[in-house]
Every structure is written in structure tokens, then in C-alpha cells.
């Protein structure tokens, strides 16, 4: 185990993993409770097109993905206003646009396929020092944002209309929040991969909702479950030479099944 920490790439992967293990469920709990779980999938596909654009144009891919996903997040907010009765339509439109752009760019420059594989499924070997700086800097900023606006985000998730009448600046907070979601997805891509990033936002939360006795407990428990999955997933994927994203998500699914099973047994006794 200690031998593992001697490698720079493992130190970076674990450090980045610990940060996204806090970020994903912390944002995910608000998404799940607002029934916006699919937004993660939508923005991650747009982020992929940003990565492709970055590789094609020679710009730092993660920065490009960040720009693309933040713009897409703002686009979802605008579209949600146009289709108030069909909120999920905005998510579907942006998801389709994201896949479309990514496919066109990938077919335009076939040589980028190898680079994209790591972004699609997550690869701990590919976390560079520049990625690490971005993940740490923005990650800490997002965690602070959620901590400071925790109570307002809670109220909006429970009852948006009530929050507005209580004098909470719902529109502004929603706008900030959607940008934060886009940032979280981009930062998590390196470790979990585009295709699985929304799973890390949803599955630990799903497990914590089974047993939590308060909102605070649900938030903390989902972070604990995510950390357990991420750290053990990175270690297992290193030793077994597996894609880190899939390993992490499978571990979180196993934890979810164990929690459901445990709850079932407790209810019977």
C-alpha cells in the first residue's frame, strides 16, 4: 500500500479522487432531491465535446471542457424558461447537442480517439499536475460555496416557491448552482470518466437516502460512501489494471446494494 504512494501519478490520482469524492455527492444530493439527476449526464457529454475541441485545437482540454459545460449549463437554464412545463426537455436538447458536437469533432480528427478513451472511462495514469492544480483550486472553491449556501440550497431543493416567498434569492442561487454542477463534472472527468461521472453524483446519494435520519446526515453519509468507493476504486484499478471510473462506480453500486439489503434485514427483525 505504501509502495503505491511512492508514485507521483498515484499521489495525484488519490488527491484528486478524494476531492471529487466530496464534490460529486455534495452536488448530487441537491440534484437527486430536485429530480435533476440527468443533468449530470447531459453536461458530461457536453464536456466531452469540449475535450475533443481542446485536443483538436491544441488548447488545454480540461479548460475547454469547463468552458463548454458552463455554457451548456447556462443554456439549460435558458431553455428551462422556454419550456417551463417540460423541464427535462432542456436537459435532453443539451445532451443531444453535446453528443453531436463530440461525434463530429472525433470523426474530424480520428487520431484523438486514444486520448479520449481516458476521458470517457477515467484513467488514473492520466491525471497531470496541471489537472491537479485545477481540481484542487476549483474543488476547494466549490466545497466552500456549497458549505456557505448549504441552507439556501436545502430550502430550494425542498420547496422552491416557499424559498422565494421567504426572501431567498432563488434565481441567482440557481444560476450559481448550475455553473457549479458544470464545474464539478469537468473536474471529475479525469478520475471517473464522462460516461460515469453522473453515477458518482447519484449512487452514493441513493445509498444514503436509504438510511439517513436528517438532511445533514444524508449529505455526510453520501460523502463517506463516495470516498469509500473512490479511494478503494483507485487502489483496486491500479492493482488489477482496470479503468478507474468503472471500478469506482461498481464499488458504489455494491455499497448501495449492501445498504438496501441491510435495511431490509433491519426492517424484518
Amino acid at each position, binding site marked *: 500500500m505504501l509502495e503505491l504512494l511512492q508514485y507521483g501519478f498515484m499521489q495525484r490520482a488519490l488527491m484528486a479522487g478524494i476531492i471529487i469524492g466530496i464534490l460529486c455527492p455534495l452536488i448530487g444530493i441537491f440534484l437527486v432531491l430536485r429530480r435533476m439527476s440527468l443533468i449530470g449526464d447531459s453536461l458530461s457529454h457536453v464536456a466531452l465535446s469540449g475535450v475533443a475541441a481542446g485536443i483538436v485545437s491544441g488548447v488545454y482540454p480540461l479548460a475547454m471542457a469547463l468552458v463548454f459545460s458552463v455554457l451548456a449549463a447556462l443554456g439549460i437554464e435558458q431553455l428551462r424558461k422556454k419550456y417551463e412545463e417540460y423541464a427535462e426537455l432542456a436537459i435532453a436538447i443539451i445532451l443531444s447537442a453535446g453528443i453531436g458536437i463530440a461525434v463530429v469533432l472525433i470523426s474530424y480528427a480520428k487520431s484523438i480517439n486514444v486520448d479520449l478513451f481516458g476521458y470517457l472511462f477515467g484513467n488514473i495514469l492520466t491525471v497531470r499536475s496541471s489537472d491537479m492544480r485545477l481540481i484542487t483550486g476549483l474543488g476547494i472553491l466549490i466545497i466552500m460555496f456549497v458549505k456557505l449556501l448549504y*441552507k439556501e440550497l436545502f*430550502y430550494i431543493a425542498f420547496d422552491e416557491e*416557499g424559498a422565494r*416567498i421567504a426572501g431567498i*434569492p432563488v434565481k441567482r442561487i440557481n444560476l450559481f448552482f448550475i455553473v457549479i454542477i458544470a464545474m464539478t463534472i469537468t473536474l471529475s472527468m479525469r478520475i471517473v470518466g464522462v460516461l460515469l461521472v453522473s453515477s458518482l453524483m447519484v449512487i452514493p446519494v441513493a445509498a444514503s437516502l436509504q438510511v439517513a435520519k436528517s438532511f445533514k446526515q*444524508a449529505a455526510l453519509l453520501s460523502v463517506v460512501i463516495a470516498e469509500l468507493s473512490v479511494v478503494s476504486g483507485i487502489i483496486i484499478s491500479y492493482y488489477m489494471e482496470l479503468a478507474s471510473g468503472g471500478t469506482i462506480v461498481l464499488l458504489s453500486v455494491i455499497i448501495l446494494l449492501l445498504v438496501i439489503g441491510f435495511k431490509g434485514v433491519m426492517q424484518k427483525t
Partner: protein
Amino acid sequence: MKKLVSVKDVCFGYENELVLKNVNLDIYEGDYLGIVGPNGSGKSTLIKIMLNILKPSKGSIEMFGKNIDDFRDWGKIGYVRQKATSFNTGFPATVEEIVAANLFSRIGIFKPITRSHREMVYKALEIVEMEKFNRKLIGNLSGGQQQKVFIARALVNSPEILFLDEPTVGIDLDSQREFYGLMEKLNKEMHITIAMVSHDIGVITEKVNRFACMGDSRLICHTNNSHLEITDILKEVYGDKMNLLIHRH
């Protein structure tokens, strides 16, 4: 008497259909106002316009003497919305967390909840006799208990006026009886002004001291509660077959 809310010449429509036509309504300090009317008569829309959730196409609203767009003192207002109890029952929030939510605007962004805020939550729960349930998950309570929690949430800021939109829908008879008892206590003992939309015409005419009836997108009447006058007005709105049965909760 101090005027708390003033609705002036308000019109509102959804697409091509006009829901409110030139509605004028004043709510005074101490009022226990019941707003009744058939489905689609614009009762809930009127409440939402008063609370600035919807914008009128014409006319204006004054809240505590200020134009609603300039009004910032939302702590003076409590609101229990329609189908308040039809929230996501799987939401992992305790009674205490739900009631404290209405204090967030007063506490301010980036500031934590303190002990004095927790005491305010406890007091609000005491008023509705739910203080023993403070650690329970909201989804595990009965409909009547949940309704009380939402009233406590509306009361936690010690509001001067409480708006309720069809608060007894989906609540059993015992809980309804308790609810109307609580409303009387809030109005008479705690001097909170109440404006309540309801379909329960019999109870409303029995309990309230002011009465407003909506019909055909208009405010048909706004009067002090007088059974004889109200019966005639309700017959005009609901038709001649309507018989008003006053039943006491």
C-alpha cells in the same frame, strides 16, 4: 385599522383566458379573511399575485404600504401553499430542518444557524403542538401532522399576516377540526391576520370575520361576515341549487 394588503384593479390572464378582472381587495390588521369561489374562479391566482409569485397584467399590489416589487420585509408574511403536504415524502429532512428553513432569509446568506434560531423553531413548533416531533423525518408524519409543521414553518418568523391556500385539502376531519381551532388561536390570541382560500364554504362562513367571494374572474363581494348576505351571494355564484349548511368544527 391598519391596512396590510391592498389589491388595486388587478387583472391577470393565462394565455388568452382572463382569470382576474379588475379585482380590488383590502386586508386589514386583525382580519380573518376567507376567500371562496368555484374551481377556476381565480382564488389561488389572487393569493399568488398578492405574494408576488405571479405578476398581474394590470393593476398593483401594496404590502404594508409598499409596492410589492419594493417590499423586502418577507418575514412579516407567512404562507402555507396549496397541496403543501404533497411534497416529496422521501426527502430526508427533519421537522426541525423544515421549520428552520423559513429563517434563512433573516439569518442571511453565508451565516450559520445559531441557538437563538433553534429556540425560535422550538417556539413555532410549540404553537402547533409538534415540539416532540422535532427530530422526526417529515415524510414519516401523517398528513395532519405535516400540515401543522408547514404552519409552524410559516409562523417561525412571527409573521403579521398568514396566507393559506386550501390548507385542509387531503386532511382528515379530526385534523381539520384541530386546524380551525389553531387558526382561531392565531387570529384571536396571537393577533395574526389571516387570509385563507378554501372550498369549505360552510366552515369558512362560520369561522371568519371577513368574507370574499370570487366568481366569473371577478371579486363578487368583500364583506363582513353576515350569514344572510353571504347565502344570497353564494347562490349568485354557485347557482340556486346551492344550500349553505353551517357545520361547526
